[in-house]
């Protein structure tokens, strides 16, 4: 926050804290639950997703606690299997997939476009209601004793088990529609509602990421939907599709399942990369480096994501030729990911780096994503994957990707947009401490699982009495999990207590140059009094720090910098 001593004058004339904003415009449960306002839907999504995250987190802690000892501690094997299945299913379908697009995307996307709302507000509300139905069904499954198939529902075990598979797959089916509707909405909104001055290559990179994500959501999700429907048909009507006892093929299920679920990994990680692209630029006070390559790499990842699913099946018995092709194609994903990493890094070069809470999470994201991406290499490589497949090495790798990367970006985004969402600043000291605790705890938890896996510990094991040497890795992992738990609770405390005790937030506390910072804090119901002019979304120098405001003020229109233009 470089104070120049001079008074800086804002060129924006709208009030910073209007009497009436989207939070207090109308009151009552129905005014929220049946609202068409994308911001309120975004907030409701965020609360629901964080509730699901809490639930999934409780299961995570139960798993880690149980594994502290090689033998049975609290659960029988049957109970343990239900706990890890619910942890996976809740985290994937209710937290990570909707996470950034539905919560942050809903709030931010129209604001970034200078638009009043998404293209189809009613569809947006329906998407949220479907999510709630999915959440309630998941809770119902929990009430019925849970399921024990693993979140992947592999046949024929998912046909044999007596747990309520039909109910949980119906929930996933409904959640799929929720996801499709969000994607559809975003695609149309981005195509049709950009302000006249915003060309495709003047869009913030988060919008490129959300657009790429939306493509995957609407193309891949129907495949999961129909696969789960086929599974239900097989269970209920005993028609042989995947069950070999009825003439079906269990490996076919894996193909169908991963045809969605691999792209789903990119539904999680692409918007996360988008969030990081915004934050790195803002907190380094620098224009993003290599805008076009980052934008193209999002599209490239979306396309490549569809042709690599077979790398989940190197040991499934699919042919050597298929394995060879899928291994080669899988490496293609590593290139656009590397491009993003290097471009973020170069963005920081010669910047003025502000280590506020969102930036701490951003830097941990980069640390974690580097490990996540690099440990993907031995898993894409055929010879080494045969050894590592279905061991804790894979567990560690996908937690680095799905939790350490996606979830950290989600949390970074919440901390970044929180002042705009709620109008309040949270306690930086507490939140920053929490961020360090979560980051260190995360690495303690999951790094120890890499050697554990490469030494041979299979995943989804309740007992490991036969291998006492493995206990130390599990114990380190469990200690890390408790660190994370304390960190997350502390972060939640910092955010929630800001609602009553927090300072009033300025228009732009961090100095981001995208359009959402030009509106009031919190925004008015229709977002902007006048449609804002879109310039270069990374012209961060158009905003300067003002001591008087306690935040950044816009000193000139953002323009494309001719000297350094693309």
């Amino acid at each position: 926050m470089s104070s120049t001593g001079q008074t800086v004058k804002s060129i924006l004339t709208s009030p910073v804290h209007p009497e009436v904003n989207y939070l207090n415009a109308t009151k009552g449960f129905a005014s929220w639950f049946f609202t068409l306002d994308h911001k309120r839907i975004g907030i409701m999504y965020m609360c629901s997703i964080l509730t699901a995250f809490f639930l999934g987190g409780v299961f995570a802690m139960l798993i880690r606690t149980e594994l502290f000892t090689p033998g049975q501690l609290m659960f029988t094997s049957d109970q343990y299997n239900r706990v890890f299945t619910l942890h996976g299913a809740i985290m994937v379908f209710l937290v990570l997939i909707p996470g950034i697009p539905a919560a942050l995307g809903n709030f931010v996307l129209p604001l970034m476009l200078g638009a009043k709302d998404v293209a189809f507000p009613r569809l947006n509300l329906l998407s949220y209601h479907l999510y709630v139905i999915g959440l309630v069904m998941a809770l119902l499954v929990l009430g019925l004793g849970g399921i024990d198939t693993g979140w992947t529902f592999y046949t024929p075990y998912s046909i044999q088990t007596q747990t309520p598979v039909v109910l949980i797959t119906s929930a996933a089916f409904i959640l799929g529609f929720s996801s499709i509707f969000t994607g559809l909405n975003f695609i149309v909104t981005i195509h049709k509602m950009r302000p006249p001055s915003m060309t495709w290559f003047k869009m913030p990179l988060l919008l490129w990421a959300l657009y790429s994500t939306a493509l995957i959501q609407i193309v891949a999700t129907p495949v999961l939907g129909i696969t789960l429907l086929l599974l239900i048909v097989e269970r209920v009507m005993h028609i042989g599709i995947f069950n070999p006892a009825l003439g079906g093929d269990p490996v076919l299920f894996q193909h169908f399942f991963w045809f969605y679920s691999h792209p789903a990994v990119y539904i999680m990680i692409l918007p996360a990369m988008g969030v990081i692209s915004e934050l790195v630029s803002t907190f380094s006070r620098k224009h993003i480096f290599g805008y076009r390559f980052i934008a193209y790499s999002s599209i490239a990842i979306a396309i490549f994501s569809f042709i690599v699913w077979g790398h989940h099946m190197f040991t499934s018995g699919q042919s050597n030729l298929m394995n060879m092709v899928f291994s080669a194609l899988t490496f293609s994903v590593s290139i656009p990911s590397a491009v993003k990493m290097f471009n973020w890094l170069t963005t920081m070069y010669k910047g003025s780096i502000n280590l506020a809470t969102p930036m701490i999470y951003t830097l941990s994201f980069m640390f974690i994503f580097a490990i996540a991406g690099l440990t993907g290499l031995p898993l894409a490589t055929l010879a080494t994957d045969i050894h590592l497949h279905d061991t804790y090495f894979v567990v560690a790798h996908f937690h680095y990707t799905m939790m350490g990367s996606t979830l950290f970006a989600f949390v970074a985004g919440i901390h970044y947009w929180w002042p705009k969402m709620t109008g309040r600043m949270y306690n930086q000291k507490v939140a920053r401490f929490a961020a360090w605790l979560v980051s260190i705890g995360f690495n303690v938890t999951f790094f120890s699982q890499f050697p554990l896996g490469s030494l041979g510990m299979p995943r989804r094991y309740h007992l490991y009495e036969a291998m006492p040497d493995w206990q130390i890795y599990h114990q380190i992992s469990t200690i890390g999990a408790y660190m994370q738990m304390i960190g997350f609770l502390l972060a939640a405390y910092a955010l929630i207590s800001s609602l009553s005790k927090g300072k009033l937030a300025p228009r732009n506390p961090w100095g981001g140059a995208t359009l959402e910072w030009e509106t009031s804090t919190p925004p008015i119901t229709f977002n902007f009094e006048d449609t804002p002019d879109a310039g270069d979304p990374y012209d961060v120098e158009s905003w300067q720090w003002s001591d008087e405001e306690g935040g950044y003020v816009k000193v000139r229109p953002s323009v494309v910098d001719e000297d350094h233009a693309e």
Partner: protein
Amino acid sequence: MNFATATASSLHLALQEGRGQTFWLPEQASTAAGGVDLSFYIIYWIMVFFFVLLMGLTFWFVVKYHKGIHPKAEHTPHHNLPMELSWILIPLALVIVIFWYGFKGYMHLTSPPANAYQIRVEAQQWTWSFVYPNGGRSGGKMVDDQGQAVPEAYLHVPENTDVVLIMESKDVLHSFYIPQFRVKQDVVPGRYTKVWFKATKAGTYDIFCTEYCGKDHSSMLNKVVVQSQPEFEAYLTKLKDRSPYSPAENGEYYYNIFGCVQCHDTKDKVTITGPTFVDAFGSKVNVDGGATVDMDENYIRESILDPMAKIHSGFQGVMPTFKGKIKDDQINDIIAFIKTLSSNVPEDVKEALRQTPEPGGEASGEAMNVDDGNSAESAAAGDAASDAASGNQE
């Protein structure tokens, strides 16, 4: 440079045939392990290099350009094509190299030599069993009720010999994994999958199931014993010539190796997954659909060959069929074993079943000698023949 030395010495270590456990990888005990580990360490050092590069720069930038030290950001170009192409093309070249090494190692892992020694593997919830070319069987529970190891449960293979396992599953997906051999292959119901290896070091190694298969997935363990050719042959002969044992002893043996032990208690009269065998014989059983049947020889036989025909009320119909896998004499022995567990059977009958037949007499253990062929195919043919025979009896 330290980095280069570390790389070289770690690659050297990886290439050493049969080295012991390191921080990252278990002991090497097969011919495949060296190639896999070479790929692993090449990738490992590439990972370390890039991680140190990326995080070193990040850390340096955060320290050098922190706003306390560097309050004003400097203008730098927004893009630089040669630089951006370099971090596309260099990683691309590296991943092509990685792919190639991985592919080569994989071809070795999945191309069994034509004359490899064949052993059949049957996986079921939650046991492994192994059928040798001479018809001998091992498998089942590794530890008995007294906590004693059961050596006949293990898979035995000869040292320095190409061995191919032809695997099938009786129920759900399983996966066969020996970390020290660096081999893993899913076992899929309804098709055969193969895994091969050439074990280089005598010793005992763990076998894990790595595909989640239900309740006792984490207990679906076994061991592989690598031994010299003469020792292995002696073991095979022992497996084949188990007789003379009493029918009850043979029944208990089959009860273990066919995996009945995983679901049916024989000691404490408790329910594991299926009904207990204690005091079962001679009782009345309520079956799904409301009928009551006698728990007798016919019910046991039918339950083994067609488990879904009459499901014991209160239990899930999860038992796989053993039709085509088990021979009539083996069923008879299991029935004998179940009889000896029941108080409904007169003591003198039970005593007779526990009698070891005279050597040279018609021992039920002879059942194992039916197949005298020495390949898996002829063992399978033997199974089929006995299946046909049992069909005739019905």
